Each structure stands twice: as structure tokens, then as C-alpha cells.
């Protein structure tokens, strides 16, 4: 595959961004859909090229294509190159990003139709996709960081897309600042690695780590720094707080953020720099623990939310926790395989939530219900997504989750395995709680809504959901034969039929399927058949319920206690007092002192000759005395 075409994967969305934002505006009417068509065409091109690249990488020796790089900057002994990596990890990520992005862009043609910011929306979506493709393809940590920040910027712009809403503007700012806090660690890690190795090149760093030249505390700190960047972007505990608020953006943006771009970047980064983690037990264990804890922690909040997008948001955090756990205990293939499957079913779920919102005008599940009748396509596809994320055989989520559970049994602290198993139950429960509250029973909304009767969305929105539903069924089959693992560098392959039914000969898949089944059953009992009352259960576990619904008070802790009171209202206010009354006060004090001194001395200037004569006399006398005594 010619290297120009590989560059084109990234340059196509960049050019659609440039065209949409700078060139077409004077020539088209505001209601024109040209911006959408341009973006969709560009991303289709990228998708086609990505598939080609994937095929080429599969055929290439060592699953890697070498692309020549470009010299960018030479300062002193520092030489910085720009270049691309094209290996199995990149190739898989390219396909994920471009497929999900394409589906989201097509869907947005319906969802964003008539929005006054339609052009702006597509310009930023193009840039968002381009930045993520840049992260995936970059061959040096510096370049990854550049695009990484670009992804952060685009998510800022898109979360705050409806910036006239204060909640959206706040959510956008929060997302940027919280993730930047993580980026601080990433940047520090880049500095640390560079100071020790004089390179940003990822392949060289891998080589040094594998050779043992980069080891010990330096390596551990560098890996933890990189991981802190990933924690911010992938919304892991304790930097997860931005993601639920990021719901303020348009729903297709959430689909893109949650499935393929923003949050996937963190997991991808750990996978990309995995050799650094692999050579530091401490770093790898940290990844596994943070992942495992985040998985159950986020799931617990997902249990009680009544906003459909918020449930999905917490499920994303939880699933990202699984991916981190998978990376920590199993390696690149395990974590990335879950990312790969998750991208499709999570994009599908978000698009489904957007479709529901389009029909009902709300995200509050208490005002939904009975939508199965009105929206059969949305219901069917959403159900597939829910079954997949719950890990039901043979959908895609089953295959990747099963591998993570399997590896957490053998690697990492054993507590993580139990947490992950409990999370399986919780995931199935909250997803089917959504299904029953939204699609089951009778329609409860529409009282004052403008919509009256909910209706199925237009085909431009349904088609992407169907495509993603198909992918959510089949994407897991890639590794049924073990081929995904082999492509990623480890594992052996076997026949499809053997792989497909092999889980039933093992204990672990049975346990996880039973747990998921119990979760679904419980949701059915509470929300469909009402055998159990949700309110009764809620009041029985009142403290826990409060803890979950208040999100462990983390927002209050960060925004209220730390930022507002401790820093801006406390320490920084103190510094401001010091600055005004201490530092500047001293300056003004010196000035006032000089003026007062001048005033005092001015009295000596009486203008009377005798007075001056007197002082001259005293002076002369003093000099004589000095000379006499000391001279």
C-alpha cells in the first residue's frame, strides 16, 4: 500500500474540516446538507483506505508497514520527526474509528437536521475524527500528545456545542480541565522519558524497554505518568467525573466520544506504550487495579440513574475499566479486543438513546415506556446492543469480556476477578433496567411534549443503527478462532466451530452467563413485572442508594471543596491578599514613605539664611570632632 494513501486516511477528514469551515459557507444556504455530505464522503474514503490498510497489514511480515517520516524540528541535540506507525494495533483502531465515525455522521444527517450550528457541527466532527486518527497513527509520543490535545479540544467544542446552555458550557470546560489534569502526568512522562533516552519515538522506546536500558523507577514513573493521561481521557477513577456531564453535547457526539474517539484514546495509549508497562510490574498492577475498581465503581452509579444517557455514560466508564483491567492482566490483545467490540455496541446504544430522545423529547426514562410498539427498529437494535454489553453468548461482548474475566482469574490481584464478576451482574441489570423502563410497559410521557405520539426515526438514523447492530453481533467472531489475538501478536488459532462452542465446556463462561442472566431476571422482576418495588429496595438500601445517586459526592468534593473553597476561594484568595496588601502594599508603602520623608525634609528648606548658616556651622563642627576623635 503506497504511503501517500496511508497519510490520506488522516488527511481526508482534515480536508473536509478545512472545506466545511472555511470554504463552503459563502456558497451554500444555511439549511443545506452539503457540509454533511462532504464529511461523510471524506470519512467513507478514510474507511475504505483503512480497510485496505488492515488487509495490507495482515498480509505484511510482522504485521507492520514502514512509512517514511518527515523531519520537523532540530534544536540543539534534539531532533524531532513526524511519522506514522502502521501496525496491527493501528490498523484495527483505524477501522474502529472510521466505521463508528461514518455511522455517526450519517445518523447526524437526521439528528442534527435544522440545527443552526449544522455546519459548525460537521466541521468539528471532521476535526475530531482526524485528531483521533492522528493519535492512532502517530509514531512518536510527542505527536501522540499533539493529537491527544486535539481530541481534547474537539470534545470541548462538541460537548459545549450548545454553548448558550450554561450546563453545556460548564460540562465542556470540566471535560477539558479534568482531562488536562491527567495530561499533566502524560507530559511529565514524556519529559522524563526524553531526558533519559533522548527520543520520543515509540518504537525506539519499546526497544529500550525490552532491552532493559529503560528500567527501574524511571520506567515505572514514566508508565504511571502515561497512564495518568489515559486515566483522564478514558475517564477512569478518580478522573471519571467529566464523562457523565459530557452528555450535554448532542447525542451523536456522545456516541462518538464514548465509542471510538475520546475515551478510546486512553486505552489505546496504554496499548500503544504497552512494552513500557510490561516491564514494570508496579505500573501494570496499577493499570489492572484502577481498571477493576473503575469497572464496579461506575457500574454502581449506573444502577440508579434515571437519565438514559447517564446510565450509558456510567456503563462506558465501567466498560473502559474492563479494558484497562484486560490490559493490566492480559495484554494488548485482550484489552483492545474489548475496545473493538465495545465501540460498535456502545455507539449503537447511544444512537438508540438519541433515537428515543428524538421521538420523546426527553432523556428521562421515567417519562418513557412502551416505546417497543412505536419504535420497533430502535427497540430491536437497542436490545442487541444491550445483550451484547451484558455479555450474552454469542454476541460480541461475550467474547471479549470472557477473555478479560479469564485472565483476571490468573493475573493480577485476585480481588479484581471477583469485582469483575460482580460487575457482570450489575451490567446486565442496569442495561435491562433501561430496556424495560424505556421500551417495556406503557408510554408514560408526551403530556406536555410537542411530539404527542412517539414515532420511529427516519431511515437515515435507523440504517446506521442496523449496521452497528450487525457489527455488535458479529465483531466478536474475529477472535472465536483466536485470529485477533494472533494478529495482535500472541495466542494461537483454532477452528471456528470449536471456538464457538468451546466456552460451554468451561466453568467460567457458565458462571458469567448465569450472573448476567440473574441481572436480567432481576431487572425483569422489578421493572417489567413489578414483583419487587424499586422504591422499597431503594429505601431498604437507603445509604447505598444515596451514595450512588449522589455519585459518591465526588463532584462536590472536586468542584466545591477542592476547587472552589480550598484553591480559588482559599489558597489563591490568600495569595491575592498577599499580592495586594503584601507585595504591592510594600511598593505603595515605599512610595508613601518617600513622600512622607520628602515632606518631613522639606521643612528644613525654610529659605532663611541664618538657619542654613546654623546647620553649616554644626556640620563643620561635627567634621572637626570626627577628625579629632577618629583621625
Amino acid at each position, binding site marked *: 500500500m503506497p504511503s501517500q494513501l496511508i497519510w490520506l486516511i488522516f488527511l481526508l477528514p482534515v480536508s473536509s474540516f478545512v472545506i466545511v469551515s472555511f470554504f463552503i459557507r459563502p456558497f451554500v444556504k444555511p439549511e443545506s446538507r452539503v457540509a454533511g455530505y462532504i464529511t461523510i464522503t471524506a470519512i467513507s474514503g478514510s474507511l475504505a483506505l483503512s480497510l485496505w490498510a488492515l488487509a495490507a497489514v495482515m498480509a505484511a511480515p510482522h504485521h507492520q508497514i514502514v512509512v517514511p517520516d518527515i523531519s*520537523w*524540528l*532540530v*534544536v*540543539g*541535540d*534534539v531532533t524531532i520527526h513526524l511519522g506514522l506507525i502502521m501496525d496491527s494495533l493501528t490498523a484495527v483502531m483505524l477501522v474502529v474509528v472510521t466505521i463508528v465515525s461514518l455511522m455517526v455522521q450519517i445518523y447526524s444527517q437526521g439528528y442534527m437536521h435544522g440545527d443552526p450550528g449544522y455546519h459548525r457541527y460537521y466541521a468539528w466532527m471532521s476535526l475530531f475524527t482526524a485528531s483521533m486518527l492522528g493519535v492512532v497513527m502517530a509514531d512518536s509520543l*510527542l505527536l501522540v*500528545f*499533539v*493529537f491527544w*490535545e*486535539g481530541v481534547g*479540544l474537539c470534545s*470541548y467544542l462538541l460537548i*459545549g456545542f450548545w*454553548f*448558550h*446552555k*450554561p450546563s*453545556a*458550557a*460548564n460540562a465542556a*470546560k470540566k471535560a*477539558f*480541565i479534568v482531562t*488536562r*489534569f491527567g*495530561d*499533566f502526568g502524560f*507530559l*511529565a512522562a514524556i*519529559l*522524563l522519558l*526524553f*531526558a533519559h533516552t533522548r527520543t520520543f519515538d515509540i518504537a525506539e522506546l519499546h526497544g529500550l524497554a525490552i532491552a532493559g536500558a529503560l528500567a527501574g523507577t524511571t520506567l515505572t514513573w514514566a508508565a504511571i505518568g502515561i497512564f495518568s493521561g489515559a486515566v483522564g481521557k478514558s475517564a477512569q477513577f478518580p478522573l471519571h467525573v467529566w464523562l457523565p456531564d459530557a452528555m450535554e453535547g448532542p447525542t451523536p457526539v456522545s456516541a462518538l466520544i464514548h465509542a471510538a474517539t475520546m475515551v478510546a484514546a486512553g486505552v489505546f495509549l496504554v496499548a500503544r506504550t504497552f512494552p513500557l508497562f510490561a516491564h514494570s510490574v508496579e505500573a501494570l498492577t496499577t493499570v489492572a487495579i484502577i481498571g477493576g475498581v473503575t469497572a464496579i465503581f461506575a457500574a454502581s452509579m449506573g444502577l440508579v440513574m434515571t437519565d438514559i444517557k447517564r446510565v450509558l455514560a456510567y456503563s462506558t466508564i465501567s466498560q473502559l475499566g474492563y479494558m484497562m483491567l484486560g490490559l493490566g492482566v492480559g495484554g494488548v490483545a485482550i484489552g483492545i479486543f474489548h475496545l473493538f467490540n465495545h465501540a460498535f455496541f456502545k455507539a449503537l446504544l447511544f444512537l438508540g438513546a438519541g433515537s428515543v430522545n428524538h421521538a420523546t423529547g426527553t432523556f428521562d426514562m421515567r417519562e418513557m415506556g412502551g416505546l417497543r410498539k412505536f419504535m420497533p427498529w430502535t427497540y430491536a437494535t437497542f436490545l442487541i446492543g444491550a445483550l451484547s454489553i451484558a455479555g450474552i453468548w454469542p454476541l460480541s461482548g461475550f467474547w471479549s469480556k470472557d477473555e478479560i474475566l479469564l485472565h483476571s482469574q490468573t493475573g493480577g490481584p485476585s480481588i479484581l476477578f471477583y469485582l469483575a464478576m460482580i460487575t457482570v451482574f450489575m451490567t446486565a441489570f442496569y442495561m435491562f433496567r433501561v430496556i424495560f423502563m424505556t421500551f417495556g410497559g406503557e408510554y408514560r410521557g408526551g403530556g406536555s411534549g410537542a411530539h404527542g405520539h412517539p414515532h420511529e426515526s427516519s431511515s437515515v438514523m435507523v440504517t446506521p443503527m442496523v449496521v452497528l447492530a450487525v457489527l455488535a453481533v458479529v465483531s466478536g467472531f474475529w477472535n472465536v478462532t483466536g485470529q485477533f489475538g494472533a494478529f495482535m501478536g500472541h495466542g494461537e488459532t483454532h477452528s471456528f466451530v470449536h471456538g464457538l462452542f468451546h466456552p460451554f465446556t468451561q466453568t467460567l463462561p457458565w458462571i458469567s452467563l448465569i450472573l448476567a442472566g440473574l441481572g436480567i431476571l432481576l431487572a425483569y422482576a422489578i421493572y417489567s413485572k413489578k414483583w419487587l418495588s424499586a422504591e422499597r429496595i431503594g429505601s431498604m438500601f437507603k445509604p447505598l442508594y444515596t451514595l450512588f445517586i449522589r455519585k459518591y459526592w465526588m463532584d462536590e468534593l472536586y468542584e466545591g471543596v477542592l476547587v472552589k473553597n480550598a*484553591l*480559588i476561594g482559599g*489558597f*489563591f*484568595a490568600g*495569595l*491575592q491578599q498577599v*499580592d495586594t496588601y503584601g*507585595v*504591592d502594599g510594600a*511598593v505603595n508603602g515605599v*512610595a508613601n514613605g518617600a513622600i512622607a520623608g520628602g515632606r518631613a525634609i522639606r521643612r528644613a528648606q525654610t529659605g532663611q539664611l541664618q538657619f542654613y548658616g546654623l546647620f553649616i556651622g554644626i556640620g563643620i563642627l561635627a567634621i572637626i570632632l570626627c577628625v579629632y576623635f577618629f583621625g
Partner: protein
Amino acid sequence: MDFNYLTTIIFLPVLGAILIAFIPGLSARLIKRIAAIFTLIPLALSVFLFCQFDRSLVVMQFQEKLSWIPAINAHYHLGVDGLSLPLVVLTAFLGFIVVLISWKINLRIREYFAWLLLLEASILGVFCSLDLLLFFIFWEIEVIPMYFLISVWGSGRKEYSAIKYVVYTLFGSAMMLAGILSLYFTTGSLSMIELAEGGLGMVQSIMPAAAIFFLLLTGFAVKLPVVPVHTWLPDAHTDAPTAGSVMLAGALIKMGGYGMIRVCVSIFPQVARDYAPLLVILAVISVLYGAALTLRQTDLKRLIAYSSVSHMGFVLLGVFALGQVSLTGAALQMVSHGLITGLLFAMAGLTIHNVGERDLSKLGGLARQIPIIAVVFSIAGLGGLGMPTTSGFAAEFITFIGSFSSTAFSGMQVCTILAVLGVVLAAGYILWMLQRTFYGPVLEQYNGIKDADGLERVYMSAFIVLIMLVGIYPAIITDIIKLGISPIVGLLGG
């Protein structure tokens, strides 16, 4: 070099100022045109020099040397190297832009433009002088136009701020003059080149070198500014007219960083090494303290002014990390900050001018009413928080890489990491400012406010193009800067 480029660049604005001041009966339009022409030609010439600069030589170029006061061995000696040339171009650029920014001035136009041109000339003179006395004279001349610009065309407590600026600066320059005199009486030379080439070590001084170093440094530190001698800056920037703020933040405070490298580090490399820990710690304090105070500001211009304190801390960090890369980063940061903060002040000035409100708690929702200003202001803000593809990222990243890898002293890495925290805080105050100004519900009282007009769009675009150009391809400047930095690193002994 037959043609005296540098003299022409410096004195054309002076000539323009004289014409504006003394030709009777000029119309306002004509005055503005004269000002534009007499700043555009120096800009064109400085860009020409930038292109003509011989990239294979590490010496001063375009030198002009005349004996000036033979009795004290003072010369009219001009020249530029890789360190000063980008700053000359920056100053000439801003000098021209501020004329455009001032197009709507209608109070005492004649004096205003005369002072503005004189201000530009004096800053250009500082960057081109190679003789300490000449350097000092240009340094001092700058105070006068700035004083008048603030006290006549300013706002708020303008008289207070103007006099504070003058007294503060004079305090600093008194120290500097003492330093220059001590140097002269120790070595008998006023030539920066001779002094840097080791004139100092051979002569037994009556004063310890460190004392002279700190006398000179005080003058530069006030200008940069370094905490705790920074308190003139927020007042002066806040109360100056827009063009004054742009010149102050964009070009003028760079004289401090430039002086530190050209005089303090070059002439006293050993002292600089000895005191690097102290100065790097002051840099970290400036970065974090400046950022913390920025987060507390409620006045649009004052917020940007405090952010300058934080951002110039990176310059101090890079300078006294004393490495090739860190010094390059510091020099690039000066250029980058000049562009970014210049644009920030221009946008703040435009917003305040059009909206008539500068209190962040009373602004809001302006993105719908003045979208062009909102977009440009945001781009400048992104530069300020170090977004990649803006010059802010390139400069800060190079500074951090250089400082972290520096071996100036053992705590260098911790100090660098602390300084990096300043970038996190920058995201906080910049985004907060943008949100308070442009986002949120549209406020009715601001309906019908004018967005940027044609001329304003022209200079905004010029700023953005340069910020992105330096951000995407910093080598365009660093390739020149390194020619100026490498001899200095040579003096430092590696």
C-alpha cells in the same frame, strides 16, 4: 552592508513621529496614514533582514559601528543575531499592528501617534544595540511614551498606573545603570560583544561579579516581570489603551528576557550558573503564583495581564536552566507570547470597546452577537493554554524539554514539573474567561453590538497566521534563534 538597515528600521518611526508632531494642519486621516507607512516600512525591512540573515554564521550581522563618545569609549554600535532578530521582527510587526488597532482613536490624535511611533523606535533600539550606553538610553526613552499613553489615553486609575510604571521602571533602571557603570569602570568597555568574550575575567574588580550581575538583573527582572517585582504590570496593562497593552505585553516586557540572556548570562556565565537555583525557583514561583492570581481576576484585561506574569515565568525558567534547548525555548516563548498575548489584548480591547463592559461577571453569551471576535479570542486563548499547533505549545514544550534535561542543578527536574502545572492552571483561567465572556445565555442588553470590521479582521488574521505558522513549523524561528543561542551556550561551557 552598505545600507544601514538597522538605523533605518529604528529611526523611520522616529521620523514619522517628528512629521506627525511638527507638520501643522495634518488631518486625522493623514496622521494615521503617516503612522501606518512609517511602521510598515520598518516591518518590511525587518522581514527582509530575516530572509537575508546568513544562516551559516553565528556572529552579529548587519552591524553598524561609529565612534560616539570617544572619551568613554562609547560607540553607536548596532547589530542583530539570531536572538535579537526575531524580537526585532516581532516589535516591527506589533508596531505596525497597533497603528491599525488605534484606527478608531479620536482623542488628541497627533500626540497619540507620535508617542506610539516613538515607543516602537525605542524598543527596536534596545534589541539592536550592542553598546551598553546606547542600550541604556533606548531602554530609558521607552518610559516616556508609555507614560503618556497610559496617563492620557488610558482608563480606570490611569494616572496612578502610569506613575507607578515610571517609578518602578526607573527603580529598575537605576540599578541597571549602576551595574553598567560598575562594568565600565571594571573593564573600561561598554561593548556587549567584548564583554561577553571574556573582558571581565581579566580585570580585578572592586566589586564582586555577583553584585554587578544582580544590579543588572534587577532592571531586567522588573521588566520581565519576576515575582515579587511584578505589581506594576497588572495596573499598567489594565489601564493602558489597547495599543499600549499590546505593545507592553507583546514587545516591551520581552526587553527583560532579552537583557537577561544578552547581558546577564552572556557576560556573567559563571555567576548565572551559581545563582541558577535561586532564579529557577523564582521562575516557578512566577509561573504558579501568576496563574493562581489569574484565576482570581474578574476584569478581562487584568486577567490577561496576570496570565502574562505566569507565561513570562517560563521565559525565566528556560533562561536559567542554562541549556541550549531551554534557552531556545525561552527565546521562542518570548516571540510566541508576544503574538498570543498581543492578540489576547487586542481582542480584549476590541470586546471592551464594542461592548462597553469589562467586568467578567457582567459579560456573557457574546458568541452569538460577536461571533468573529469570539472565534479569534478563543484561538488566542488556546494559544495561551498551550494547545498544539499554536506557537504557545511549541515554545512551552521546547522550554520544558530543555529545562527538564538541564543539568544546571540537581532540583531542575522537580522545578520543571512544578512549572508544567502552570499549563494546567492556564487551561482553567483561559476557559473560564472564554466561558464568562462568550458562552451562556444571550444577554439582551448586548444585542446589536458590532462585530469586527474589515480592518480588524485583517490584523486578527495576521496574528492567527503567525501563531499557527510558528506552532506548526517552529523551525522557521528556532533555526535563527539557535544561531544566537549557541555562542552563549559556548560561553556557559557546554
